[in-house]
Every structure is written in C-alpha cells, then in structure tokens.
C-alpha cells in the first residue's frame, strides 16, 4: 500500500497531464526508438526468451562449496595442494586442500549435486542448467566483474543489459527497458560502470530502481523535496507552458526530428511517474507471494525484495533486470560485504548463501507459478571462483580463482537439470569445455533471438560486440 497520502492526487494530476497531450502515439514512438539503434528490425531468429533477469554475486562465489561437487577434494582434505610451492594466488600462497564446507547431496530427477548451502534452490534443480567450466581472464574483482558484465576486462564497455536493449529495444511502454537493482549495502567492485552503456548511446543506460524509496523510486522521478514553489497546480501549468513554448519553437524548425523527440520525452517522463510507483509497490502482492519471498526476514529480506521487484518489472515489459547480491564499497563491517571470503568462508558464504538461496529460489518458483519462466531467462553468475586450497592461518578462507567457477541459467529456452563442462578433480581449473563469459553471453543473446556476431556498434575503429571476437553457442543447455 502507498504510504504517501498525497500520491493518488499527484498521480491523478499527472494522469491528466499525460492524457491531455492528445495525439501522442506512445507505442509507435517506442517502436521507433527500439529500432533506432539497431540495423535490423526484429530479431535475427525466433526468440525463446523475451526478457532476462540476471543475478550477479560479486566477490567471487566458491564453486567447490556450492554447485561443483568434488569428492576427491574432500578426500585430500588437509594434504598439500601445491607440492612445488610455485603457485602464487591473488593475495596468498596456497594452503592445504580444503573440501567443501557444506555437505553435497543429489537432488531432483536429474540427480545433480548441490551443497547444503542452498536447501531451497536444490528444490529447483530440474529447472536449472549449470555451466561448471566457467573461467575468467582476470582474478581481480574489478576487471573480472567488467568481463562478466561487458566481455572486456577494461572499463568503458557496454554491459549485456545495454547490448540487449540496443538490439531489442523496450517491450514496456511506460517503464525503462533496462533496470538495475544494486545491493542496498552499496555498489559492486568497479562501481556504477558495471552497468554502464559504455560507448552505446545513453538511452541504453541502465536505470537504477530503489523500491525502498517510496518518494523517488527512480532518481528525479518527482521534484526534489523542500522546494515550496513546486505545487501540483504549478507543476501542470509549467508543463503546459513548456509544451506550448516548444511547439512554437518547433514550427519554424520543421524537419528537426530531435525537437519532436524531446517534446515526447517529457510526455513519456510523465507516464513513468505513474508506472514506476505502481511497479515498485510490493504491497500489491498477495500474502502468499510475500511469504514465498520471505520479505520480512531481516537479512534475506532486502535481496528477496529485489527478486520480487524484478519479477514485477519483467511482468510489465522491462527487458533486462540485473540484481546484485553483494556490494563492495560499503562500510558495513559485520561480515564481508560480498562473497569475497578470504578469511572466513563458512561465515561469509554462509550469510550470502542463505540470502541468495532464499531470493533466487523464490524467484524461480514464483516465475514458474506465474507461467513466466518459459519466456524469462534467469542467469546467476559471479565474476570468478575460489581456490580449492585453504587461505589464512585458520584455513577458513579461500583466495581468488579465475580458473574455475559455476554459473547457472534457468527458464527462457534453457534445458533444466543439466550440467555442462567440468573442472578438474579438485575444482581448480576448468578442463572440459572451458567457457568464458563470451559463450554465456552468446547463448543468452541467442535465446533472445540475437546472433551475437551481428549485434555490433562502431567505436574508435572497431565494430564492437559483447562477445569481442569470440563466443560459441552452448547448445548442450538449450531446451
């Protein structure tokens, strides 16, 4: 329910403002916008998925404690990992072999292994496809996050959400095409540019939504507080005047379509003022749904809210939603602010694991119940994995490992209950079908009806792609 008693009337007057603009053909214009950036109209081939929800777990999620079952590692627990002493990890020399901190069990009809860190997700295993052989080109958080998001270890490249909206445009007529829901605790490593549009036009930038901010779920959605000159009547009178002024200005400049687009942008902004508060109002959800997500849980609740919000957004036509499960530059010191568990993995993965388990499982269940999973591609990934060897004097941590990690996908044309690729017997390096972000991205784009080799944008001498000059479709995980 709305907590702001003024909201209905504000909405009402905005509705009038929007409605008073007459001939404004929003849908047509959106279609125009959608195609403006792309050389093709429509998709390259038939799409299985219409939209994407991507969960990003920054910090480096351990594969050997979560999805990648390594009995041999458990057997070698406490024995030397690096007999030659030649290895040097990101921050340390390797300690001894360290088996999973959680017990693994088989689940579902597929019988895939999942650790006890994820009791709820384990129930969804037959809808999930795992890529066990992910690896990255960097073992540093910043570059590796950039790579997973943009295909490049350097900052400044467009992220997958921007590419997808560049290629497909928006499905929503009154919401942004690409929304990011950062962790409420702060930004991920590398900051806002993780979801930057890079050199793509700014219309493909992500919009961040804050469901906890009822006043401004989108920055500047409504006038800043504390300016008493802003009243509801003045708001409309000002917009009316602006509209007339712009029309008059335009008459002597016929043929400049940018002026027309800018007039329409103000009309669309008015629509957004109506739709964004509605979309972010989780109070509209049934009690059963709220309980499914465990919204009230003090630790897992905030991420679960983001998951539910993501479902509401894609339901309303948002093309791409990215949710962060973990932060970086935050001063909260109780535990590690993300999955980066150098000192105490049972503590930090224990915390983040239950957060992810609760939210992601609820999301998959909910999407399925709503009949949306088939057309919604869910991706869960991290930037790199962790070492099978222990780190630290207490041997409770794990250092960075660019050589192996696990990503999983579900829905949207994905075959459930399958695993692809494999790491070596200790989970140290991916050895069967090693997969960079390129293949993951190529596969996701394929499901959206896009040929990753044909989605390009010219910048400083090169026709750039999300997949650089690489990328293979992973057919083994397609339904």
């Amino acid at each position, binding site marked *: 329910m709305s907590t702001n008693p003024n909201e209905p009337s504000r909405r009402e007057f905005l509705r009038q403002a929007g409605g008073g603009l007459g001939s404004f053909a929003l849908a047509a214009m959106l279609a125009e916008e959608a195609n403006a950036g792309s050389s093709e109209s429509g998709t390259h081939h038939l799409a299985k998925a219409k939209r994407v929800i991507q969960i990003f777990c920054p910090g480096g999620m351990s594969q050997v404690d979560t999805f990648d079952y390594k009995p041999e590692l458990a057997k070698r627990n406490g024995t030397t990992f690096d007999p030659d002493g030649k290895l040097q990890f990101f921050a340390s020399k390797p300690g001894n072999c360290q088996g999973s901190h959680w017990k693994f069990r088989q689940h579902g009809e597929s019988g895939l292994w999942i650790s006890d860190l994820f009791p709820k997700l384990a129930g969804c295993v037959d809808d999930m496809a795992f890529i066990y052989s992910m690896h990255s080109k960097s*073992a540093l958080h910043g570059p590796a996050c950039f790579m997973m998001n943009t295909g490049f270890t350097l900052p400044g490249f467009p992220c997958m959400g921007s590419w997808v909206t560049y290629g497909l445009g928006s499905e929503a007529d009154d919401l942004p095409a690409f929304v990011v829901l950062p962790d409420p605790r702060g930004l991920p490593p590398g900051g806002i540019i993780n979801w930057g549009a890079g050199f793509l036009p700014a219309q493909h930038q992500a919009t961040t939504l804050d469901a906890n901010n009822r006043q401004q779920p989108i920055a500047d959605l409504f006038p*800043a507080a504390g300016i008493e000159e802003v009243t509801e009547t003045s708001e409309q009178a000002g917009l009316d005047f602006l509209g007339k*002024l712009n029309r008059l200005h335009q008459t002597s400049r016929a043929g400049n379509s940018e002026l027309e687009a800018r007039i329409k942008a103000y009309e669309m902004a008015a*629509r957004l003022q109506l739709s964004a508060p509605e979309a972010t109002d989780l109070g509209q959800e049934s009690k059963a749904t709220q309980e499914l997500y465990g919204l009230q849980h003090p630790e897992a609740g905030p991420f679960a809210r983001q998951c539910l919000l993501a479902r509401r957004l894609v339901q309303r036509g948002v093309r791409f939603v990215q949710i962060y499960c973990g932060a970086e530059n935050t001063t909260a010191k109780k535990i590690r602010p993300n999955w980066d568990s150098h000192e105490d993995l049972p503590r930090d993965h224990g915390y983040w694991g239950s957060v992810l388990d609760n939210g992601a499982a609820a999301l998959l269940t909910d999407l399925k119940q709503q009949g949306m999973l088939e057309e919604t591609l869910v991706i869960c990934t991290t930037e790199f994995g962790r070492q099978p060897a222990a780190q630290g004097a207490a041997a409770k941590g794990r250092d960075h490992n660019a050589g192996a990690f696990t990503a999983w996908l579900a829905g949207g044309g994905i075959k459930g209950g399958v695993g692809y690729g494999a790491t070596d017997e200790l989970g140290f390096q991916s050895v069967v079908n090693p997969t960079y972000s390129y293949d993951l991205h190529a596969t996701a784009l394929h499901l959206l009806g896009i040929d990753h080799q044909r989605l390009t944008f010219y910048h400083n001498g090169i026709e750039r792609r999300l997949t650089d000059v690489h990328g293979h479709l992973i057919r083994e995980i397609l339904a």
Partner: protein
Amino acid sequence: MDVNATSRLCRSTFRVDRITCCALFCLVFVGASWVSAEQKVDFAKQVAPIFQQHCIRCHSDDDRQGELSLASVDDLNENEFVIPGQPDASYLLEVIMAQEGEPPAMPQEAERLKDAEVQTIRRWIQQGAAWPAEVRIKQASKADASWWAYQPLQVFPKPHSIDEFISAKHQKHDLRFAQRADRRTLIRRLSFDLHGLPPTPEQIKRFVSDPDPNAYQKLVDRMLDSPRYGERFAQHWLDLAHYGDTHGFERDKRRDNAWRYRDYVIQAFNDDKPYSRFLQEQIAGDVLWPNDPQAVIATGFLAAGPWDFVGQVETKSPALRRAARSLDLDDMATQVMTASMAMTVNCARCHDHKLDPITQREYYQLRAVFAGIKRTDRVVSEQALQDYQDQKETLRMQRNALDAAAAQLTGRSIDLADVVGGGNGFGTGMFRQAIDPRNAKVQTRDFGNLGNVIVNRFSRSDHPLVDGVFIADGKAGQAEVPISSTEVTVSGLPTTSGKAWDMIRNGPVASQHSTTIDGIDFTGPGHHLIGLHANAGITFDLSAAREVLLSKQVTQRADDEATAGDQSLAGELRFTAKLGYFGASGSNVADAWVFLDGKRVAEFRKLKRDDGLQAIDVNIPTKSKFLTLLATDGGNGYGMDQIGFGDPQLRLSKLPRPSQETQRRVAKLKQRRDRVEQQLLELGPTPEFYGVASTEKGAERSVPEVRLLSRGNPESPSGHALEPGSFAALSMLQPQLGTLQSNQGERRVALANWITHRDNPLTKRVIVNRLWQWHFGTGLVSTPSDFGYGGARPSHPQLLDWLAGELVANQGSLKAMHRLIVNSRTYQQVSVIHRVDTPSSERTNPARVDADNRLLWRQNPRRVEAEVIRDSVLHVSGKLNMQQGGPGFEDFTYQEAYAPIYTYVTADSKPLWRRSIYRYRVRTTPDRFLTTLDCPDPANMTPQRLTTTTPLQSLALYNNELMLRQARYFAQRVSEEAGAKPSDQVQRAFQLALGRAAEMEELQWAVSLVQQQGLFVLCRSLFNANEFVYVD
C-alpha cells in the same frame, strides 16, 4: 591462471568433433586420381598466395574457424588436412574442389579457387607438401600504404578559401549556401561553440547594435581572447585523453594531483600554444623542456586514463601484475596514437590489423616507447618544489612571528604543539620538528617503526617547558610507568605492543593518514597539532609554564586593567585540546590519556576515527606540576594508531581584560596576519602532478624488454626483444625510434618528433578535422579518431588537405584555424531547413539530396553537451562561479574505505558552482545528472559526444534539486533586475535564458503563468525549453 593451458585444452576438446566430421567427408569422397610429373612447386611464391587470398581470413592463427588454421607449417602438421604425396587422400583438396555438381565446400566467404589454383595445390601435395617453417601466412590488411590518409598533403599553389571548396561540391549536387544567420543567432552560436556558455543580454545588445561592418570578426577575436575559450576547448581534449580524477577500477583511489594537467590543457588553448609543441610536451615535455613546469606537467596526458591499483600494486600474483601492466601500456599507446593520428593501433594487439597496414610487431614496437615509464604522482621539478617550500616556510614564519607578537599582547596561552616543535609556545617552533620518545632528542626527519625501544623508561628533555618523554607498556595494569623526572609513576595502564612509530611531533607523524577530522584540518590556518602515535607519552612542566604565563611581560602590562577576581587563583591553569584518532577508518582503535601529576584526569578508550573529535578541558590547580599526554595502542596492534591533540593550549584560568591600545595593536597584527594567510592560501598545494616517471631504479638503468605477445597474451611473449618504433605505412617517415639501448626519455622524444614531423600528413589532417567537427558537429571525416579503412572517407578531401596546409602556414596556431572556420560563410549559414516554396524535384530539395547535410548547405543545429547545460543554468541564474584553475570542486562527500565511497550532494554553494571543467571526475561513481545528459564515461577515449533524448533526461532537468534551486535563483535574479511588473520579468527571463525577447504570443502565455503560478515556474520551464538546450 595459465591462459595457454586452458586454450590448449579447449582445442583438444574440439578436435574430436573435427575428426568425426572429416571421416564423414571421406566416406562420400570419390575423387579422380591423376598424377603428372611437373616442375617443382614453390610454396612461398605459388601456394602461399592462394591460401592468403582464399583461406586465411577465416582460418588464421587468431580466428581458426572450424578449429582450422592455415598460417604455418605447424598448423598443417597439426590438422592433418594434407597427407604429403597423396593428394587424393588429402581432405584439403577435397573441400576446395567441386563435387558431383555441388560447388566446393570451401571457401565459404571468399571467391572460389580457379582450376589452375586447385591444380597447383594438388601438385604441391603430390610433391611432398613442403612448407618452409619461416613462411607464415597472414591476412593482408584491407588498406595498404597507398591508403589516402597516409599520403602527403596535397599542395595548393593558389590561395583558396573554405567557402570555395564547399561551394564546388554544392554545385555538383545542385545545392547552394543557405542565407547568413542574423547576428543574434550568430553570437549565440559562437558563444556556445567557443565558450560553452550562452551570451549575456548585454553582449548580444552590443554586438547586434555594433555599426562596424567588421563587428563579427571583432566578436570572434574577443571571444578567442577570453579565458572561457580554453575552458571550453580543454573539455574536448580531455575527452580524447579520457581524463579522470580517480584511478578507476576496484579501489578507485583519489588522484588529487591530476588537475594540474587539466589546467595545463586550458592554458595551452588560451595561450594558443603551437599544436606541434602542444603534442610534443604531452608526450615528452619532461625530457625536452625539464625546466619548463608547464611542459613537464603536460605529460599528465600519458597518465590521464584509468589505472588498476589492485592489479599493478596490490596483488601478490606476478601474472596478474603482468596482465594489468600490459593493459596499462596498451592504454598509453592507444591514447597517443588515436588522439594525435587517428590510428586504431590497439586493433593490432592480438594480431596484425585486419583493415589497416599496422602489423602486430609494429604495435609492440610502439609499446616499447612507453615500456620504461609508469604513472605516478611526481613533483613538477626539484627546483619548483624547493621554491615552493622556501616560500611556504617564509610565510609560515611570518605568520608565526605575528602570532607570537599577538600572544605577547593578549594571548596568554601557550601552544603546546609549538613547544613540541622546539618553540616558546608562541609560534617560534618549527612545523614537524619533533621529540624522540626514546631519548628526548630533537629530530627533524621522518622515522617509521622505532628500533631499540625500552618501554617504561623516562627520558628528560632539554626544553624548559617539557619535562620528558617515554614509551608505555602497562603490562595489564601491573607496570609502574614513570612519567616525570621526579619519579611520579602511573599504574593501571593496559598491556601494549611496546612498539612506537616515528616521533612526538609538532604536526602529523610520518605517514599520518589524515590531518583532518570533523572538517577541521589541523595543519590549516590557526590550527595546531601534536602528533602522538601509540605508545608514546610526553610530560610538560607546569611550573615552568605557569612562570611564563604569569611573567610580567605576559600578564601585568602597565596599561592593562587589574586581574579580576581572587588573586590566589592567579596560578590556576586550563588545558584545552581537541583529541582525535587521525588514522584510517576501520577496526583500528587506540586509547588516549591525560594525567596531572600522575593522576588520571581524562581517558578515551578504543577511540576510532569515526568517533570524531573529543573536547578536552582540564582545570589545573595552582600546585600541579606535571601535565602528561599519552597514547596507547588499544591492544590490537599499533598500526594506524595516530592520536592527535588538536590546538593544545595551556592558559591562565583568569585573564585580565586588554586595554584599548592593546586591542588596537592586536587588530593591526591580525590584519597583517590575514594578508600572510591569504598568501599562503594562494600558494596552493605542493607543486605535484599526476604524470609519468621512469621505471628505472638504482642500478637498473635500462628499459624493460618488450616482445611481441602472441594473441596479446602477456604470458606468451615470442621472438626477440623489440626496438622502439612506429609505423612503416607512413612511407615518408622513418619508423625507427631508437635502439634497445635507448632510454625511455629518448624513445618518447623520438615518437613525439615522428608524430609532429613536418612531413607527417596524418597528424595535421586529424587535428583540423577535429576542429571542424567541434564547429559543425561532424568532421569532414566523420570518424575523427579513425582515419583507417574502417573509418569514414572525407567528404571534402581537398578542403581537409588545404586546412592542414593552413595550419602549417599559421605555425600551428589553432586560434588561426578557428578564425578561418568561424569567419567562413559556410559556418555562418542559418541552420533551419530551407522551405521549398515551389513543388520541386528530388534533385533540388536539399533535404532529400543530402539529408545528413554532409555537404553543408546549412549549419547543423546542435544540442549542447551535458556540461554546457549545467554551466548555462548556473550562468543564467547568475550563480556561476568563474574561479579559474586549481584543485577540482567536489560535489560529493568522500568516505575513506577499501573502495572509497563517493556520495553526490546537490551543488548549492559558491565553491560548487564553478564551471564543469573544474569538477572532480570520479570514475566508478560518475555524476548521475551529467551521465543522464550524455556525459561520457571517462574510461573511454571519446572523440565525439553522442546525443540522445530520453525521458530520464526530462526528469533530471525538470526535477533534479540542482535545477529547482537554480530556477529559484534565476527567479530571484529576474525580480531583482526587472522589478515587479510581470511583463518586464518575462522579457528579462527570456533575454537571459534564450537571448531574445518574448514574442507576442509567448509574452501572453508567460505573463499569465507568472501571474498565476509565480516567476519560479516560468524560470523552471525556460531551463527545460528545447530552445535552451538547442543552438541554431
């Protein structure tokens, strides 16, 4: 991570597929078998060209479609597509031959092989398929050295003009110049173009009513002479340099000295520095003109881009460091070559450039130019630093002398920090002079972790006001810690590490994290600090202090009024200070203690930075002899435990009131002090900048070797060490830039000279094209940083070359080029699209003939950039702060953390109302307001701004707090300047925002709006008007 190992694994997995596939083809193959003994086939001359022409584009070392490469004999051996001596069993032959009416399977994306070519390959296989190891087949680039951009500039014997070239093209397409824009339009266009700001109504009036026929030329001259010009054009250049004020990447640390390069660029444009010199300074100014501070600072160009602290410094993994360093060098090389010559050299990092004649080897030779430098903070010069320090010290001494004189008259308080610095308590001490806690010796240099520490030993000091010093370890309360020369001891102190760092200082200790808490910088004017790192303690002699304070000179001036109150309290003192933990935020804590004669009078346990300042105010009875200050480490190690006592003062509890004469003299001293303080302020920060320095250290005098990296992989160097070099495609120049023995400075000088060589046509073409773009929105070459095959072709090649020639003729003066361009008829055309009055054919409607206006039959209307919108809003509201230069303004709060947190605030104070060029650019957390308005990410080199139109932009301009507050200031300004009459207010508001009067209809609407809703609403709407952000 071993990238190679994984790649190999990757290949072997795919091999399975290929063999299966091969077998399948063999089954269906029915081939003719004939052999002829003919002359020996020369592989290099006869076969290799066929592979190169038909196969290599898809089957090269770096593409490997179908997991097949045909680049070297190793590839041939690996893939087994050829069986020497057995053409009919060789799969290669099968796929290139037509099979039973079907076209050949290969090539798929190139012309099929001629029969003769197939026969040549057959014979080659028959003869044993010899492939000399040294023959490697590479894809030929699309363009070669004959590409237009690499050719010498065309020479024009006769004088020409811009309009001539434009007109010639017009005629070919039946186009004409549009009419000249009116003066109001022209001054607005020029003002946004050259200054990035709208003209004031007064400037417009002056120009529009100027009877001089040369008024326009005069206006151009005035504008180019204004410092606003450099501020405007510097942004264009900083876009190319992808300049930022933080490092970027994960840690995104501050780069507080970067601004000097930004100021350099502004000044270079304002001074009209010849373009060659401008480039030379930025590439090698520190080597070429080491005594010219500006030339040295210019090398900030090479360091302007992002830099990965974690990858280059923090990680312990050498492989990760090599990877980060490789990207670092790529960034420098790419920036220099794209900015100056629009060559996309970075495309040759993993393989030869596929479009342009740039080999991978040449790319790495270019990297060898930069291999000996690294990005770093550095002093402008030792001399500049010395001058600065001398000047600062002189001013400080003047200030201290004035303080001491004032204290003699009124102060009656002893500054204990000054005492620690060896002074008399009234400003005669030296800043950062210190007392050694181990032995009470005076020290001036910095120390780190102290050796030879003996805890709980008291050392007497020679200073009359200091009794002595010690290093404490309470040993769980058991130790009797001596704190005075009279053997007073303290017990009950906690156990410490028994270690100590640096000295007890007048000012911060060595490597102190910060000198600021709660917004007070204790090294700033009027503030003092005792830096006391755990576990040091110091005891002051109160009897001596009392004596000084009570002495005749200080208290009993003949003209003072008698001390009020009880004479028996005359010896009572007060100690005041502001205590803080000056180390970094986080889990670090320390304890601080104050004792009187060994009696605890104040204690602060587990003090953290986040606790802020603690006020200390201790009353000292007449009989007390010793005041002791102590810091202990809080039991969690002594690292970062930088306790500081800010503004520590001892004074008499009761003070006499000064006479009028004393007050007059004090006021005079204060005036003089303020002047000195102002001079200190103007001196600014230390002459340091963020630039590049040699990686050479100690005996290692040579530049690190650079080898070609296979596929760009830093773990796969191949071949021998490469000499520094550039690109042979520019055949009029020598590509050699030195030898393996050349030092890093010589290499950069050679590159600077190569780029700015008088025969280098590309550098000149590129800059005149950029200038053209900055005036017309699109360059003659529409891809300003790519003059290669992948870029656009010039719309007016002759004009481009002529302009390049004019740049040379004008000794590289960019201002001369601006004059040439903006004084042209082409530039001064109207931008509105022609109305075609009579029904016309396709040919005569210019909007149909040339919809993109590449032939310039009118000027291009343009939306102004994000920064220009912000600056214009401030300018129109009357709030723009024109302060030039210096450290950037920070419209965010900064919070120290592993990855610092930058939180934006609404700019609502004068220091934050400076021009956007002076903002502090944070890479990971860009200013959302500007980003929404298309301000690019400084991770990218941005040769051309993109313009989008989005609903989020409307929301930002309509609702953002900055906009609303500025609309309010705008309204206040209008009512002040135009009085109370709504029609006057409307006209003034239109003049200020749009540079014109409101027309009749607009006036009616606006007056009614103002009357009903107030002036604010009008002002807010004007800031959002299309006309406000679009320039005709």
